[in-house]
């Protein structure tokens, strides 16, 4: 499988919304390659006709009535916000 180069690390960082300085990209590429090469031993395993396992719990998800059972807690929801005004979360300007 393909090696992770500097450009790929920059792309992943962008997708993950983590700013990584240019001078750190090479080092990180080396580390990620080390981990991914170790992981690639999975290619030895024959998984033909094996269903992917997403959960260890066999049970089906439970149904419940679609009814409001919570709410009216705007203060609590906003309590930990780094910046909240007029009952809203606020962020830097998005639209000019």
């Amino acid at each position, binding site marked *: 499988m393909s090696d992770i180069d500097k450009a790929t690390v920059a792309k992943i960082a962008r*997708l993950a919304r983590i*700013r990584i300085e240019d001078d750190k990209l090479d080092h990180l590429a080396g580390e990620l390659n080390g981990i991914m090469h170790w992981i690639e031993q999975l290619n*030895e395993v024959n998984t033909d006709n094996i269903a992917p396992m997403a959960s260890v719990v066999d049970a089906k998800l439970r149904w419940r009535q679609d009814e409001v059972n919570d709410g009216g807690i705007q203060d609590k929801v906003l309590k930990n916000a780094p910046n909240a005004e007029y009952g809203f979360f606020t962020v830097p300007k998005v639209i000019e």
Partner: protein
Amino acid sequence: MTDLTKLTIAAARDLMAKGELSSRELTEAHIKAVEAARPLNAYVAETPEMALAQADAADAKRKAGDARAMTGIPVGIKDLFATKGVHTQACSHILDGFKPEYESTVTQKLWDNGAVMLGKLNMDEFAMGSSNETSYYGPVKNPWRAEGSNKDYVPGGSSGGSVASVAGYAAMGATASDTGGSIRQPAAFTGTYGIKPTYGRCSRYGMVAFASSLDQAGTITRTVRDGAIMLESICGFDPKDSTSVNMPVPNFEAALTGDIRGLKVGIPQEYHLAGMPAEIEALWHQGIEWMKAAGAEVVDINLPHTKYALPTYYIVAPAEASSNLARYDGVRYGLRVVPNGGGLNDMYEATRAAGFGDEVKRRIMIGTYVLSAGYYDAYYLKAQKVRQLISDDFKRAFEKVDVILTPTAPSAAFAFGEKSDDPVSMYLNDVFTVPASLAGIPGASVAAGLDAQGLPLGLQILGRPFDEETVLRVSGVIEEAAALKAEPKVWWR
């Protein structure tokens, strides 16, 4: 007067039942012990006032005839359980200042059962680590040291604060969580008893999520009996967690009969690792002899996909983590960093760059990579299929045996910095614990001996889904056979 912090939960419970001890006395002794144990760095927040209020309430309830399983017992809480109005950051910088407006189900159950909170416990950041070296609050020190040495050792991870507080007599028990071994491996490194129940036994509501298909709460205690008492008090169905299983919780303490005659104990041949220290092989062999002496039948078994468990885990867990940790964006809680004149995307990127530590960043990057377009099938889907094969290995094994016995970790505790430069060598610490996490089965680590340097070693017991009782019963037999009298020399008080 005896040192109250050295009592077991069971002994303190019985003394309080007889009226010979109050929770107030017990809690005051522990608050002092927590302060004195600060050199261990086990606690990241101490809550002495809350503890005393809970202790007084517990004493009043006992007087009123309403004593429960944990009434008046002071415990520590791992920093990833949401505790209303109290520090809850999973030891990450990105959750700076976060004090939840709600309580996790696990801690709520503890308080409902009468327990007393001493504070919040250090851990690897977001539970990502095997040595407690990734915490934003600094590393935790293992109360144990090699004989004649002043060198500090890691306590294991990620539940490093949980095990250090319990081994260091600064809590009678502690909550912990296990995603790939974070309860069992640190228990082995500190001579404590750690048990992770079946996935679905404990509610994940209010636990800071790492990898949701793997995360499971459990307990750290000094004895198996204490583990049975505390574990029972946190298990049970919770409609607030969609993967919580609606099954009655047995009386775990009653499972400690000491009788394992006729029980079939499986020894997986794939766990004989090349290069594993001889004393760990010897301890395992000793465990097998203890099983035979107690009347159990020992059976060789195969878990053929064992060697693929770690690489599978290092796809599945980072993939889920990259998704779970997307919520830390600087908008709703925790840290916010806005570069000068920066917009929304700049804020996300700067906040996450400043807020996450290196190991967390590495895992988010791996997770993002394996889930990205073009790689999803080759990595993530492949790992999910191998996970099925690993789970099938256990299913087949449990057709032949009742329980599986292995070493908990491939080494004893190591010194600081010894493995932190090489991520893969650090990951190998969890080689024996990860398979059971992937399969969701219950597992425990019980202190079974010491290595040549005098550091503790653990044996791991794995059971069928929802058969924690057999895991506990076998743990009890090993604890009794090992009869470990050693305890860490108190250097931190």
